[in-house]
Each structure stands twice: as structure tokens, then as C-alpha cells.
């Protein structure tokens, strides 16, 4: 089994807010992230697929194809967007790094599984160089 990772970067804004809570609790739990005007990050997405190299090509997947999947499923929807206001899966879900990793998985996994080659192993989302979250599917 070989694991192959493709990295991509996008920039987006978000804020953390739980509508079920009073403002005071939101501020207490989420701190500066609760600013309703939002703030932004340069995110780095790492998409890892796993499989055996194809005997004919030596590829686990064609990297160009994986790049296009990321472009089509993630970049066009998320790059230079506001997660809370413009991205449908965050209409009622707080766009934490954990939830962004899960959402990225859900956007890409059916396409990668449908191609019949490598499987999606994990998605890692760096919010900054020091903060990241990862999702590995249902475990």
C-alpha cells in the first residue's frame, strides 16, 4: 500500500457561533473566533489517498486527476468565500477546522471511491501552520 498526498491552499473567512447559546457563552467558549464580522485564514488542505501503484503507470492515482478533483469539489466552492455565509454545509454547522475536514471528505470521497482506484485515506486541514484538524472517515 502506498499513500499519496496532494496539497492545495485556499483562503476563506469564518466565525464561530452557536445560535443556541447566549452571546456571553459564545464569547466565553470561542473567544476572538466569535467576532460576528468574521476573520480569515490561508488554509492548507492535504488530501491523502492510498492504494497499490498501477502496474502499467506506476501511479496510485494520476496526480493531475486528483488536483482536478480538489479544484472542482473544494477550490471552486471554498476559495475566497465566507464559510458561514456562502458555503451550504455550514449554514447550521460551525466551520471549525474539524468540521471543514469532515466537509472536505464528504465532497471528495464519493468521487474518489467512484473512480475505482485508490481510496481516500485522510483529509488534513491546516488553519495556520500550527493548528490543524484531520478526518479519516467513519471509524
Amino acid at each position, binding site marked *: 500500500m502506498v499513500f499519496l498526498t496532494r496539497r492545495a491552499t485556499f483562503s476563506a473567512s469564518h466565525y464561530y457561533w452557536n445560535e443556541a*447559546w447566549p452571546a456571553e457563552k459564545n464569547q466565553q467558549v470561542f473567544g476572538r473566533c466569535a467576532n460576528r464580522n468574521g476573520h480569515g485564514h490561508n488554509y492548507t488542505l492535504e488530501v491523502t489517498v492510498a492504494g497499490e501503484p498501477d502496474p502499467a503507470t506506476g501511479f496510485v492515482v494520476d496526480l493531475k486527476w486528483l488536483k482536478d478533483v480538489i479544484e472542482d469539489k473544494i477550490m471552486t466552492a471554498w476559495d475566497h468565500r465566507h464559510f458561514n455565509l456562502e458555503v451550504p454545509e455550514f449554514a447550521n454547522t460551525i466551520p471549525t477546522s474539524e468540521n471543514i475536514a469532515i466537509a472536505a471528505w464528504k465532497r471528495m470521497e464519493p468521487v474518489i471511491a467512484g473512480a475505482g482506484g485508490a481510496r481516500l485515506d485522510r483529509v488534513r486541514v491546516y488553519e495556520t501552520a500550527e493548528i490543524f484538524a484531520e478526518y479519516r472517515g467513519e471509524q
Partner: protein
Amino acid sequence: MKAYFGRRYSLSASHRLHSDALTPEQNRNAYGKCNNPHGHGHNYTVEVLVGGPVAQDTGMVVNLVDLDALVRAQVIDRFDHTNLNLDPLFTSAVPTTENLCRVVFRLLKESLHKPSQAGWNLEYVRVEETENNFFQCFDAGPQVSIA
């Protein structure tokens, strides 16, 4: 839904790789420049990954404020700007980065047993000694409890 949250921290410390069980010549052979009697230092990066369910109300595996407080209390405040050889944990263990990595894993794992941190699990500790070498621990090793 289980997910993982990772965080990277910096700490600077000095160490000398030297074993009392070896002769001076054996120490020089084993550790080379790292056996310099006066020690030397590194800017270490400690990467911590925790795993657990994503809480519905916060969207988080762990609040980074809580994780930061834990790592600061257990690891950063203890080792940052110190000589690792003088820490009681390294009186009988050479402060290689393998051993530092395991010590950090144990320190964090032991504090995670407290009920206040229930719900998330320590997945790994990775310690980068320089940009070119790093070490990773997924368990506490044979000795579960530390002094």
C-alpha cells in the same frame, strides 16, 4: 463523528548526549559532536495530535485553549529554556530526542487521565529536533508510569 485536532508548539532547550554506562571513547563514538561536554541547543517543535468525537455544540474535538493550557503546564513550562540533562526525568535516561518524545507523550497521557479531559485521546507526539530530523511516538512505551 471522530476527528483529530493537531497543534504545533516551539520550545528551546539544551542537551548533551552522554551515557555514564559508556567509556569516554564509547560516548564520543556513539554521540559524536552531541557528546560535547558543554552541551548544545535546539529549537524543538512539538506536534501533538488528539482524537475524539466532534462535539455537536462547539464543532470541536478539543478547545485549543484547553489543549494549549495542558501542553504549556506539562511540557513547555517544564522544558523551555532549560538544560534537559538537569531534569529529573533525564537523570537515568539520555536526553535524545527519541527519549524526549516519549517523555512528552507520557507527561501528556498521564494528565489526560484526569476526568476534566475526558472525551479525547492522545494519538501521537512528534518532536522535531531540527528541520531535518523528527521523532514520533504513538504510545507510552514499556514503562507506563513516570516518576
